[in-house]
């Protein structure tokens, strides 16, 4: 189940507008470019540490059997993100 666009973002930050694309809505095999991070605190730091800075290309590789988390290819490393975290990453198709 994908969270609807109007759902409040866990952990603060502003709610993405309906037209804004977040990483959790990227389908398997698609590529996206990071525009901004909405997450705060230690999760924001972690995301930056793994290289999710503005302009980074991310490929959606694979959903786990239960649908969440999803594996992404980020700067050559395969990293799994839960939907609650990836819904805070604003992206655009590239």
């Amino acid at each position: 189940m994908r969270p609807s666009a109007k759902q409040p973002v866990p952990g603060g930050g502003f709610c993405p507008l309906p037209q804004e694309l977040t990483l959790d809505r990227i389908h398997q095999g698609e590529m996206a470019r990071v525009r901004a991070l909405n997450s705060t605190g230690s999760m924001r730091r972690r995301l930056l540490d793994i290289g999710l800075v503005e302009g980074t290309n991310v490929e959606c590789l694979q959903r786990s059997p239960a649908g969440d988390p999803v594996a992404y290819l980020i700067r050559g490393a395969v990293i799994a993100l839960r939907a609650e975290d990836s819904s805070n990453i604003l992206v655009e198709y590239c």
Partner: protein
Amino acid sequence: MGLTANSTGSGAVDRGLHIEKTSPDERVIALAGNPNVGKSTVFNELTGLNQHTGNWPGKTVTNAQGRCTHNRIPYILVDIPGTYSLMAHSAEEEVARDFICFGEPDAVVVVCDATCLERNMNLVLQTMEITSRVVVCVNLMDEAKRKGIRVNLEQLSDNLGVPVVGASARSGKGLQELMDEVEAVTAGRRECRPSRIRYLPVVEEAIRRLEPAVSARLGDRLNSRWVSLQLLDCEETLKETMTEYLGLSLWNDPVIAEKIKQAKTSLLEHDISEDRLKDIVVSCVILRAEEVCMDAVACGQGGYSRWDRKIDRVLTNKWVGIPLMLLLLVVVFWITITGANYPSELLTGGLFWVGDRLSDFLGWAGAPAWLQGALVDGVYRVLAWVVAVMLPPMAIFFPLFTLLEDSGYLPRIAFNLDKYFKKACACGKHALTMCMGFGCNAAGIVGCRIIDSPRERLIATITNNFVPCNGRFAPPYKRQQNGRRIRLSPYGHVRGKSENWRRH
């Protein structure tokens, strides 16, 4: 992983930065690196010391030290915890950063994984911000070659401004060259000119404003540029450690405090708050890492090849993933349980034979029956039984678990199960520590360190006790194999023991 005097009691407390030198010309080398890049392998190959080698992630508890000699110069190697960054988001990162900053190492060797070098550069660049005496060891060169990744070490060294050595620590390749470079750097023969990261002009301006005052106060004890940046981006833990190390508080110094205030105001004028400054610093490091690797690393097919993709599609498939995982778990248990029966039988037979001889001896020596009962039937037989029952399954289970770890399957298990564990407010890695609990709860609990969130880690630590370890579930199966009466009870070995007494 025995309970030694060092691992329990007051010895278990992290002694932090204390290094005992036996002679003044010993050189202290810090070994830093991301988790799972073979840092401990490098450490063990160099020191010959077998500290607990890595069967699972996150096992360098505190600063492990070892000694080695190269070209007649003695070195103390300090294995600091594996981290991705030095920004101190976790206890490990704090230990690593504190040792590099305040442990006064003569050089820092940063061990990298050649198969994903760009990701490793984050730590290299951050280390270079703190100290200039850095040697980069690009490990796992053999694996990179197999994956079709070519690393141009000279180019990388040029880009970074510090020596870079390629190595394959598992086969011992490249380590002599590494120590040659370490020797040159520590002796001052090889001058390191680490390329500094250029932050945004506004940030650079703020640093420039602050640096002269800081530099005047510090002398050459710490890198003033790095300290200036940290002053702008106040980290409480760092504040304390730095004040303790320097014996003075930079924050309370009136001149510096004034400069900090000025610099912060000028940053705010450009709409850069403290949080935004942190973001800028991290982004600049990452972009610089990309830049450094761009012309030094050539990926044939990329680190994550088409073949890897295919395997992962199957292992984490919606329908096949979980059954495959259960099957693998059953196979591991089957091998462990049936395999352990034979050595267990032998050990029981052998140790009990010795017990009988002990009994005979005490009888011959005229010892009273109660003493004989307490010593032989009590102490000796319980010990013999525990060894016979617990040792063989552990000796089989853990190597099998290591194989799974080396194959990289364990993170896939965590990935497959994360959602189910999340329902219990835990995370996927919890599954791995539980699996390890089947081998030994002590090892399982130690392994809980791989879980980042303190809350999830606590849940994993407590619930690990409910996983029946080998010693608790193996005996009933054994009795079944021997064709005797089966009693499926969690206290199998206790009952087994009393039956044994009756037989004699």
